[in-house]
Protein backbone atom coordinates (compact mmCIF):
# COMPACT_ATOMS: atom_id res chain seq x y z
CA UNK A 1 0.00 0.00 0.00
CA UNK A 2 1.46 3.35 -1.00
CA UNK A 3 1.71 5.36 2.17
CA UNK A 4 1.99 8.77 0.55
CA UNK A 5 -0.34 8.60 -2.43
CA UNK A 6 -3.43 8.78 -0.26
CA UNK A 7 -2.49 12.26 0.97
CA UNK A 8 -1.81 13.57 -2.52
CA UNK A 9 -5.15 15.19 -3.42
CA UNK A 10 -5.42 16.73 -6.89
CA UNK A 11 -8.12 19.37 -6.74
CA UNK A 12 -10.47 19.50 -9.75
CA UNK A 13 -12.44 22.48 -11.05
CA UNK A 14 -15.62 20.88 -9.78
CA UNK A 15 -14.16 20.65 -6.27
CA UNK A 16 -13.21 24.32 -6.37
CA UNK A 17 -16.83 25.21 -7.24
CA UNK A 18 -18.17 23.04 -4.42
CA UNK A 19 -15.70 24.51 -1.96
CA UNK A 20 -16.76 28.07 -2.87
CA UNK A 21 -20.44 27.27 -2.63
CA UNK A 22 -20.18 25.80 0.86
CA UNK A 23 -17.18 27.62 2.30
CA UNK A 24 -14.93 24.60 2.73
CA UNK A 25 -11.33 24.06 1.69
CA UNK A 26 -10.89 22.75 -1.88
CA UNK A 27 -9.01 19.59 -0.84
CA UNK A 28 -11.95 18.66 1.39
CA UNK A 29 -14.44 19.17 -1.45
CA UNK A 30 -12.34 16.96 -3.73
CA UNK A 31 -12.35 14.20 -1.15
CA UNK A 32 -16.12 14.41 -0.73
CA UNK A 33 -16.49 14.05 -4.49
CA UNK A 34 -14.30 10.94 -4.31
CA UNK A 35 -16.24 9.44 -1.37
CA UNK A 36 -19.79 10.24 -2.46
CA UNK A 37 -19.79 11.17 -6.12
CA UNK A 38 -21.10 14.53 -7.33
CA UNK A 39 -24.77 14.28 -6.45
CA UNK A 40 -24.36 12.87 -2.99
CA UNK A 41 -21.48 15.22 -2.15
CA UNK A 42 -24.01 18.05 -2.59
CA UNK A 43 -26.50 16.31 -0.30
CA UNK A 44 -23.78 15.81 2.27
CA UNK A 45 -22.76 19.46 2.14
CA UNK A 46 -26.39 20.59 2.30
CA UNK A 47 -26.91 18.62 5.51
CA UNK A 48 -23.65 20.01 6.91
CA UNK A 49 -24.85 23.54 6.12
CA UNK A 50 -28.18 22.94 7.85
CA UNK A 51 -26.51 21.32 10.86
CA UNK A 52 -28.11 18.71 13.12
CA UNK A 53 -29.87 19.18 16.46
CA UNK A 54 -28.01 18.58 19.70
CA UNK A 55 -28.74 15.26 21.35
CA UNK A 56 -28.84 13.80 24.84
CA UNK A 57 -28.46 10.34 26.32
CA UNK A 58 -30.75 9.33 29.17
CA UNK A 59 -28.63 7.90 32.00
CA UNK A 60 -30.32 4.83 33.44
CA UNK A 61 -27.75 4.69 36.24
CA UNK A 62 -29.50 7.73 37.71
CA UNK A 63 -33.07 7.59 36.41
CA UNK A 64 -34.59 4.18 35.84
CA UNK A 65 -37.35 5.21 33.46
CA UNK A 66 -36.36 7.43 30.54
CA UNK A 67 -40.03 8.28 29.94
CA UNK A 68 -39.93 10.11 33.26
CA UNK A 69 -37.01 12.19 31.96
CA UNK A 70 -38.86 12.85 28.69
CA UNK A 71 -41.88 14.05 30.65
CA UNK A 72 -39.87 16.35 32.88
CA UNK A 73 -37.97 17.91 29.99
CA UNK A 74 -41.12 18.36 27.93
CA UNK A 75 -42.68 20.18 30.89
CA UNK A 76 -39.72 22.59 30.65
CA UNK A 77 -40.60 23.23 27.00
CA UNK A 78 -38.02 20.96 25.34
CA UNK A 79 -39.06 19.24 22.15
CA UNK A 80 -37.48 15.78 21.96
CA UNK A 81 -37.28 13.31 19.11
CA UNK A 82 -36.13 9.76 19.88
CA UNK A 83 -33.06 8.49 18.03
CA UNK A 84 -33.58 5.46 15.79
CA UNK A 85 -30.13 4.12 16.63
CA UNK A 86 -29.97 4.63 20.41
CA UNK A 87 -33.11 3.54 22.30
CA UNK A 88 -32.42 6.00 25.16
CA UNK A 89 -31.02 8.79 22.96
CA UNK A 90 -32.98 11.90 21.94
CA UNK A 91 -32.51 14.78 19.56
CA UNK A 92 -33.43 18.10 21.11
CA UNK A 93 -35.38 19.88 18.38
CA UNK A 94 -36.07 22.89 20.55
CA UNK A 95 -35.04 24.03 24.00
CA UNK A 96 -35.95 27.28 25.74
CA UNK A 97 -33.20 26.63 28.30
CA UNK A 98 -29.51 25.78 28.08
CA UNK A 99 -29.21 21.99 27.98
CA UNK A 100 -26.38 22.06 30.51
CA UNK A 101 -28.25 24.19 33.03
CA UNK A 102 -31.32 22.12 33.93
CA UNK A 103 -31.70 20.40 37.29
CA UNK A 104 -32.03 17.09 35.41
CA UNK A 105 -28.61 17.63 33.86
CA UNK A 106 -27.06 18.45 37.24
CA UNK A 107 -28.68 15.34 38.73
CA UNK A 108 -26.95 13.23 36.07
CA UNK A 109 -30.17 12.18 34.36
CA UNK A 110 -28.69 12.90 30.94
CA UNK A 111 -25.46 13.54 29.08
CA UNK A 112 -25.21 15.92 26.14
CA UNK A 113 -23.67 13.75 23.44
CA UNK A 114 -23.79 13.19 19.69
CA UNK A 115 -25.76 10.16 18.52
CA UNK A 116 -22.70 8.97 16.56
CA UNK A 117 -20.69 8.92 19.75
CA UNK A 118 -23.47 7.02 21.56
CA UNK A 119 -23.70 4.58 18.65
CA UNK A 120 -20.04 3.63 19.01
CA UNK A 121 -20.65 2.34 22.55
CA UNK A 122 -23.71 0.41 21.42
CA UNK A 123 -21.54 -1.20 18.74
CA UNK A 124 -18.88 -2.16 21.29
CA UNK A 125 -21.66 -3.56 23.50
CA UNK A 126 -19.91 -3.90 26.88
CA UNK A 127 -21.54 -6.36 29.29
CA UNK A 128 -22.01 -6.25 33.09
CA UNK A 129 -19.03 -7.66 34.95
CA UNK A 130 -16.54 -7.26 32.11
CA UNK A 131 -13.24 -5.45 32.16
CA UNK A 132 -13.27 -2.57 29.67
CA UNK A 133 -10.80 0.20 28.83
CA UNK A 134 -11.77 3.55 27.37
CA UNK A 135 -8.64 5.13 25.94
CA UNK A 136 -8.57 8.87 25.23
CA UNK A 137 -11.60 9.18 27.48
CA UNK A 138 -12.32 12.88 28.19
CA UNK A 139 -14.88 14.37 28.51
CA UNK A 140 -16.38 11.03 29.52
CA UNK A 141 -19.37 10.53 27.23
CA UNK A 142 -18.24 7.04 26.30
CA UNK A 143 -16.92 6.03 29.72
CA UNK A 144 -20.22 6.98 31.37
CA UNK A 145 -22.17 5.21 28.62
CA UNK A 146 -20.02 2.09 28.99
CA UNK A 147 -20.67 2.11 32.76
CA UNK A 148 -24.38 2.49 32.03
CA UNK A 149 -24.43 -0.62 29.81
CA UNK A 150 -22.36 -2.50 32.41
CA UNK A 151 -24.87 -1.46 35.11
CA UNK A 152 -21.98 -0.10 37.19
CA UNK A 153 -20.42 -3.54 37.63
CA UNK A 154 -17.06 -4.87 36.42
CA UNK A 155 -14.27 -2.41 35.67
CA UNK A 156 -13.83 0.53 33.33
CA UNK A 157 -10.31 1.86 33.03
CA UNK A 158 -10.56 5.36 31.66
CA UNK A 159 -7.34 6.92 30.36
CA UNK A 160 -6.72 10.55 29.46
CA UNK A 161 -3.45 12.25 28.63
CA UNK A 162 -4.60 15.89 28.87
CA UNK A 163 -4.58 17.29 32.40
CA UNK A 164 -7.04 20.08 31.54
CA UNK A 165 -9.58 17.65 30.09
CA UNK A 166 -9.12 15.29 33.03
CA UNK A 167 -11.04 17.58 35.42
CA UNK A 168 -14.05 17.49 33.10
CA UNK A 169 -13.84 13.71 32.84
CA UNK A 170 -13.78 13.32 36.63
CA UNK A 171 -16.65 15.78 37.08
CA UNK A 172 -18.78 13.95 34.51
CA UNK A 173 -18.07 10.54 36.01
CA UNK A 174 -19.20 11.83 39.40
CA UNK A 175 -22.24 13.66 38.04
CA UNK A 176 -23.38 10.57 36.10
CA UNK A 177 -23.02 8.35 39.23
CA UNK A 178 -20.46 5.99 37.73
CA UNK A 179 -19.05 3.65 40.38
CA UNK A 180 -16.95 1.18 38.43
CA UNK A 181 -14.36 3.46 36.82
CA UNK A 182 -10.68 4.00 37.49
CA UNK A 183 -9.27 7.15 35.90
CA UNK A 184 -5.67 7.16 34.89
CA UNK A 185 -3.82 10.21 33.67
CA UNK A 186 -1.34 9.02 31.11
CA UNK A 187 -0.21 8.44 27.57
CA UNK A 188 -1.51 5.10 26.29
CA UNK A 189 1.68 4.66 24.27
CA UNK A 190 3.72 4.71 27.49
CA UNK A 191 1.45 3.93 30.45
CA UNK A 192 1.93 0.55 32.10
CA UNK A 193 -1.58 -0.66 31.42
CA UNK A 194 -1.80 -4.45 31.84
CA UNK A 195 -1.56 -6.25 28.51
CA UNK A 196 -3.96 -9.05 27.59
CA UNK A 197 -6.29 -8.01 30.40
CA UNK A 198 -9.38 -6.43 28.84
CA UNK A 199 -12.55 -7.94 27.38
CA UNK A 200 -13.31 -4.79 25.39
CA UNK A 201 -11.53 -1.63 24.43
CA UNK A 202 -12.89 1.66 23.18
CA UNK A 203 -10.30 3.62 21.26
CA UNK A 204 -11.90 6.91 20.33
CA UNK A 205 -8.73 8.13 18.72
CA UNK A 206 -7.72 11.78 18.63
CA UNK A 207 -8.59 12.95 15.12
CA UNK A 208 -9.02 16.01 12.95
CA UNK A 209 -12.74 16.06 13.76
CA UNK A 210 -13.90 16.20 10.16
CA UNK A 211 -17.19 14.55 11.15
CA UNK A 212 -17.98 17.42 13.51
CA UNK A 213 -18.31 20.04 10.80
CA UNK A 214 -22.07 19.75 11.35
CA UNK A 215 -21.53 21.40 14.74
CA UNK A 216 -18.30 23.35 14.29
CA UNK A 217 -18.21 25.61 11.26
CA UNK A 218 -14.62 26.66 11.90
CA UNK A 219 -13.52 23.07 11.15
CA UNK A 220 -14.43 23.70 7.51
CA UNK A 221 -11.30 25.78 7.01
CA UNK A 222 -8.85 24.97 9.78
CA UNK A 223 -7.30 21.59 8.94
CA UNK A 224 -4.98 20.73 6.08
CA UNK A 225 -3.78 17.54 4.36
CA UNK A 226 -0.65 17.77 6.52
CA UNK A 227 -2.82 17.49 9.66
CA UNK A 228 -4.36 14.33 8.23
CA UNK A 229 -0.95 12.83 7.53
CA UNK A 230 0.37 13.52 11.04
CA UNK A 231 -2.81 12.28 12.71
CA UNK A 232 -2.88 9.13 10.62
CA UNK A 233 0.62 8.08 11.75
CA UNK A 234 -0.24 8.71 15.39
CA UNK A 235 -3.52 6.80 15.08
CA UNK A 236 -1.71 3.73 13.71
CA UNK A 237 0.59 3.69 16.74
CA UNK A 238 -2.40 4.04 19.07
CA UNK A 239 -4.26 1.14 17.43
CA UNK A 240 -1.23 -1.16 17.61
CA UNK A 241 -0.57 -0.37 21.26
CA UNK A 242 -4.22 -0.44 22.38
CA UNK A 243 -4.81 -3.79 20.69
CA UNK A 244 -2.20 -5.38 23.00
CA UNK A 245 -4.37 -4.59 26.04
CA UNK A 246 -7.06 -6.98 24.77
CA UNK A 247 -7.44 -10.52 26.02
CA UNK A 248 -7.35 -13.14 23.26
CA UNK A 249 -10.93 -13.15 21.96
CA UNK A 250 -11.45 -9.59 23.21
CA UNK A 251 -13.02 -6.88 21.04
CA UNK A 252 -11.80 -3.37 20.31
CA UNK A 253 -13.80 -0.53 18.76
CA UNK A 254 -11.72 1.88 16.73
CA UNK A 255 -13.75 5.05 16.53
CA UNK A 256 -13.22 8.56 15.22
CA UNK A 257 -15.44 11.60 14.83
CA UNK A 258 -13.94 11.91 11.37
CA UNK A 259 -15.09 10.78 7.97
CA UNK A 260 -11.55 11.02 6.55
CA UNK A 261 -10.49 7.67 4.99
CA UNK A 262 -6.91 8.72 5.84
CA UNK A 263 -7.80 8.50 9.55
CA UNK A 264 -10.00 5.43 9.34
CA UNK A 265 -9.79 2.66 6.71
CA UNK A 266 -6.22 3.61 5.83
CA UNK A 267 -5.15 3.44 9.50
CA UNK A 268 -6.84 0.10 10.15
CA UNK A 269 -5.82 -1.59 6.91
CA UNK A 270 -2.20 -0.54 7.50
CA UNK A 271 -2.21 -2.00 11.02
CA UNK A 272 -4.13 -5.08 9.91
CA UNK A 273 -1.40 -5.86 7.36
CA UNK A 274 1.22 -6.19 10.08
CA UNK A 275 -0.89 -7.65 12.92
CA UNK A 276 -1.40 -11.38 12.65
CA UNK A 277 -3.86 -11.82 15.49
CA UNK A 278 -6.25 -9.03 14.41
CA UNK A 279 -9.50 -9.69 12.59
CA UNK A 280 -12.16 -7.19 11.54
CA UNK A 281 -15.73 -7.88 12.65
CA UNK A 282 -18.93 -6.90 10.88
CA UNK A 283 -20.00 -3.61 12.49
CA UNK A 284 -23.66 -2.86 11.88
CA UNK A 285 -26.26 -0.93 13.86
CA UNK A 286 -30.02 -1.21 13.82
CA UNK A 287 -31.62 2.08 12.82
CA UNK A 288 -28.58 3.32 10.88
CA UNK A 289 -28.07 3.30 7.12
CA UNK A 290 -25.32 0.72 7.74
CA UNK A 291 -23.02 2.43 5.28
CA UNK A 292 -19.96 0.19 4.89
CA UNK A 293 -16.35 1.36 5.16
CA UNK A 294 -14.45 2.21 1.99
CA UNK A 295 -12.49 -0.39 0.02
CA UNK A 296 -10.53 2.18 -1.89
CA UNK A 297 -9.77 5.89 -1.78
CA UNK A 298 -7.66 8.12 -4.02
CA UNK A 299 -6.28 5.09 -5.83
CA UNK A 300 -5.21 3.30 -2.65
CA UNK A 301 -6.79 -0.11 -2.00
CA UNK A 302 -7.72 -0.93 1.60
CA UNK A 303 -9.17 -4.38 0.95
CA UNK A 304 -12.64 -5.91 1.26
CA UNK A 305 -12.31 -6.32 5.04
CA UNK A 306 -12.80 -2.59 5.47
CA UNK A 307 -16.35 -2.89 4.13
CA UNK A 308 -17.20 -4.52 7.47
CA UNK A 309 -16.62 -1.17 9.20
CA UNK A 310 -19.42 1.37 9.61
CA UNK A 311 -19.68 4.97 8.48
CA UNK A 312 -22.28 7.41 9.82
CA UNK A 313 -23.18 10.55 7.89
CA UNK A 314 -25.49 13.48 8.65
CA UNK A 315 -27.44 13.15 5.37
CA UNK A 316 -27.94 9.38 5.71
CA UNK A 317 -28.13 8.83 9.46
CA UNK A 318 -28.91 12.23 10.93
CA UNK A 319 -25.75 12.05 13.06
CA UNK A 320 -22.41 13.78 13.13
CA UNK A 321 -19.92 12.10 10.79
CA UNK A 322 -18.50 9.05 12.50
CA UNK A 323 -16.46 5.94 11.81
CA UNK A 324 -16.82 2.78 13.90
CA UNK A 325 -14.99 -0.49 13.37
CA UNK A 326 -14.84 -3.56 15.59
CA UNK A 327 -11.80 -5.80 15.68
CA UNK A 328 -11.21 -9.02 17.55
CA UNK A 329 -7.96 -10.36 18.92
CA UNK A 330 -7.81 -13.92 17.66
CA UNK A 331 -7.50 -16.71 20.22
Amino acid at each position, binding site marked *: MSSEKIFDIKVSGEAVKLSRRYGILPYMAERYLMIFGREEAELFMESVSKGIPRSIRCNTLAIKDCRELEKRLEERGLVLRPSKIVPYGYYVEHSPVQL*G*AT*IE*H*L*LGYYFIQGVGSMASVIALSPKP*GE*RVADLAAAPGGKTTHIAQLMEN*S*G*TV*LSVEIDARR*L*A*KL*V*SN*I*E*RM*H*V*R*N*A*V*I*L*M*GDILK*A*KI*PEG*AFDRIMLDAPCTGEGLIVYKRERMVTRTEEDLRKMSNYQQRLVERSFRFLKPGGIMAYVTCSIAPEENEYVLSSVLERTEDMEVLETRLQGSSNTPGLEEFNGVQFGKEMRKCLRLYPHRDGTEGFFICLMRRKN
Partner: protein
Amino acid sequence: MSDEEKELSSLSCEEGRVSLEKFLREMNVKLPRCSDFFCRRSGRKLWVYCIEDELKEIVAHLIVERERIYHAGFLAGYIEEGGRFVPSLELGWELATRGAVPGELIVMLNEAEEKEFIFGRSVPVPGLPRNRKDLLLVLNKRGEFLGWGKALRGSIFPVADIGSYIRSKD
Protein backbone atom coordinates in the same frame (compact mmCIF):
# COMPACT_ATOMS: atom_id res chain seq x y z
CA MET B 1 1.23 14.18 40.51
CA SER B 2 4.33 14.79 42.63
CA ASP B 3 6.49 12.04 44.14
CA GLU B 4 4.96 12.86 47.50
CA GLU B 5 1.45 12.32 46.10
CA LYS B 6 2.47 9.04 44.50
CA GLU B 7 3.83 7.76 47.81
CA LEU B 8 0.59 8.60 49.53
CA SER B 9 -1.64 6.86 47.00
CA SER B 10 -2.57 3.57 48.55
CA LEU B 11 -5.15 0.89 48.26
CA SER B 12 -5.99 0.64 51.95
CA CYS B 13 -5.81 4.01 53.60
CA GLU B 14 -6.61 3.62 57.25
CA GLU B 15 -6.97 7.33 57.90
CA GLY B 16 -9.57 7.63 55.15
CA ARG B 17 -11.56 4.64 56.33
CA VAL B 18 -11.62 5.80 59.94
CA SER B 19 -12.73 9.33 59.03
CA LEU B 20 -15.48 8.14 56.71
CA GLU B 21 -16.78 5.62 59.24
CA LYS B 22 -16.79 8.23 61.98
CA PHE B 23 -18.76 10.61 59.78
CA LEU B 24 -21.30 7.92 58.91
CA ARG B 25 -21.62 6.90 62.56
CA GLU B 26 -22.34 10.50 63.56
CA MET B 27 -25.04 10.65 60.91
CA ASN B 28 -26.32 7.30 62.07
CA VAL B 29 -26.14 5.79 58.57
CA LYS B 30 -24.45 2.80 56.96
CA LEU B 31 -22.80 2.70 53.58
CA PRO B 32 -22.73 -0.58 51.70
CA ARG B 33 -20.60 -1.21 48.62
CA CYS B 34 -17.36 -0.02 50.14
CA SER B 35 -15.22 -3.12 50.39
CA ASP B 36 -11.92 -1.26 50.29
CA PHE B 37 -10.47 2.22 50.02
CA PHE B 38 -8.17 4.14 47.77
CA CYS B 39 -6.72 7.47 48.85
CA ARG B 40 -4.97 10.21 46.96
CA ARG B 41 -3.31 13.24 48.45
CA SER B 42 -3.59 16.44 46.50
CA GLY B 43 -2.44 19.67 48.04
CA ARG B 44 -3.58 19.64 51.66
CA LYS B 45 -6.47 17.28 51.12
CA LEU B 46 -6.60 13.51 51.32
CA TRP B 47 -9.26 12.27 48.91
CA VAL B 48 -11.01 9.08 49.98
CA TYR B 49 -12.56 6.68 47.45
CA CYS B 50 -14.64 3.55 48.05
CA ILE B 51 -13.79 0.70 45.74
CA GLU B 52 -15.47 -2.60 45.05
CA ASP B 53 -13.62 -5.91 44.88
CA GLU B 54 -13.69 -5.86 41.07
CA LEU B 55 -11.58 -2.69 40.97
CA LYS B 56 -8.91 -3.79 43.45
CA GLU B 57 -6.72 -5.67 41.01
CA ILE B 58 -6.40 -2.89 38.45
CA VAL B 59 -5.89 -0.24 41.14
CA ALA B 60 -3.19 -2.36 42.81
CA HIS B 61 -1.47 -2.92 39.46
CA LEU B 62 -1.41 0.80 38.64
CA ILE B 63 -0.10 1.72 42.10
CA VAL B 64 2.73 -0.80 41.78
CA GLU B 65 3.57 0.64 38.37
CA ARG B 66 3.50 4.15 39.88
CA GLU B 67 0.90 5.33 37.41
CA ARG B 68 -1.22 8.40 38.10
CA ILE B 69 -4.65 7.37 39.35
CA TYR B 70 -7.03 10.31 39.64
CA HIS B 71 -10.21 8.56 40.60
CA ALA B 72 -11.27 5.04 41.55
CA GLY B 73 -14.73 3.68 42.34
CA PHE B 74 -16.68 6.41 44.04
CA LEU B 75 -15.46 9.47 45.83
CA ALA B 76 -16.66 9.42 49.43
CA GLY B 77 -15.11 12.74 50.39
CA TYR B 78 -11.88 14.27 51.57
CA ILE B 79 -10.06 14.92 54.80
CA GLU B 80 -8.91 18.46 55.39
CA GLU B 81 -5.79 19.39 57.27
CA GLY B 82 -6.80 19.03 60.91
CA GLY B 83 -8.66 15.82 60.22
CA ARG B 84 -12.18 17.05 59.37
CA PHE B 85 -14.00 14.82 56.90
CA VAL B 86 -15.94 16.61 54.13
CA PRO B 87 -18.43 14.35 52.36
CA SER B 88 -18.66 14.34 48.56
CA LEU B 89 -21.72 15.02 46.48
CA GLU B 90 -21.57 11.38 45.49
CA LEU B 91 -21.85 10.26 49.08
CA GLY B 92 -24.84 12.55 49.54
CA TRP B 93 -26.52 11.13 46.43
CA GLU B 94 -25.88 7.58 47.65
CA LEU B 95 -27.36 8.30 51.09
CA ALA B 96 -30.34 10.19 49.68
CA THR B 97 -31.28 7.52 47.15
CA ARG B 98 -31.08 4.85 49.84
CA GLY B 99 -33.30 6.92 52.13
CA ALA B 100 -30.72 6.17 54.79
CA VAL B 101 -30.51 9.51 56.57
CA PRO B 102 -32.55 10.32 59.71
CA GLY B 103 -35.25 12.96 59.10
CA GLU B 104 -33.70 15.54 61.45
CA LEU B 105 -30.64 15.72 59.17
CA ILE B 106 -32.66 16.48 56.04
CA VAL B 107 -33.79 19.85 54.71
CA MET B 108 -36.30 19.94 51.87
CA LEU B 109 -36.48 22.91 49.50
CA ASN B 110 -39.23 24.00 47.16
CA GLU B 111 -38.52 24.79 43.50
CA ALA B 112 -37.69 28.45 44.04
CA GLU B 113 -35.41 27.64 46.97
CA GLU B 114 -33.82 24.80 45.00
CA LYS B 115 -32.73 27.22 42.27
CA GLU B 116 -31.06 29.53 44.78
CA PHE B 117 -29.30 26.66 46.50
CA ILE B 118 -27.83 25.10 43.35
CA PHE B 119 -26.50 28.52 42.39
CA GLY B 120 -24.45 28.27 45.57
CA ARG B 121 -26.55 30.82 47.50
CA SER B 122 -27.91 30.57 51.05
CA VAL B 123 -31.66 30.10 51.38
CA PRO B 124 -33.87 31.16 54.32
CA VAL B 125 -35.88 28.14 55.41
CA PRO B 126 -38.79 28.59 57.82
CA GLY B 127 -38.54 26.32 60.83
CA LEU B 128 -34.85 25.59 60.39
CA PRO B 129 -32.89 25.62 63.70
CA ARG B 130 -30.96 28.90 63.92
CA ASN B 131 -27.54 27.31 64.27
CA ARG B 132 -26.64 23.69 63.92
CA LYS B 133 -23.22 22.11 63.80
CA ASP B 134 -24.16 19.05 61.74
CA LEU B 135 -24.05 18.90 58.00
CA LEU B 136 -27.52 18.54 56.56
CA LEU B 137 -28.61 16.66 53.49
CA VAL B 138 -30.47 19.08 51.20
CA LEU B 139 -33.18 17.60 48.98
CA ASN B 140 -35.86 19.01 46.71
CA LYS B 141 -39.54 18.21 47.00
CA ARG B 142 -39.08 15.12 44.84
CA GLY B 143 -36.49 13.82 47.31
CA GLU B 144 -33.59 14.40 44.91
CA PHE B 145 -30.21 15.27 46.34
CA LEU B 146 -29.15 18.89 45.85
CA GLY B 147 -26.13 19.09 48.12
CA TRP B 148 -24.82 19.43 51.64
CA GLY B 149 -25.68 22.45 53.73
CA LYS B 150 -25.31 24.01 57.15
CA ALA B 151 -27.98 25.79 59.17
CA LEU B 152 -26.96 29.27 60.17
CA ARG B 153 -29.21 32.15 61.30
CA GLY B 154 -32.31 30.37 60.00
CA SER B 155 -30.88 29.84 56.51
CA ILE B 156 -29.33 26.86 54.82
CA PHE B 157 -25.83 27.62 53.54
CA PRO B 158 -24.44 25.41 50.76
CA VAL B 159 -21.30 23.52 51.71
CA ALA B 160 -21.39 21.64 48.41
CA ASP B 161 -24.16 21.74 45.82
CA ILE B 162 -24.72 19.97 42.50
CA GLY B 163 -24.51 23.29 40.62
CA SER B 164 -20.76 23.02 41.16
CA TYR B 165 -20.68 20.37 38.41
CA ILE B 166 -21.14 23.08 35.83
CA ARG B 167 -19.57 25.96 37.76
CA SER B 168 -16.29 24.03 38.10
CA LYS B 169 -16.43 23.14 34.39
CA ASP B 170 -16.33 26.84 33.57
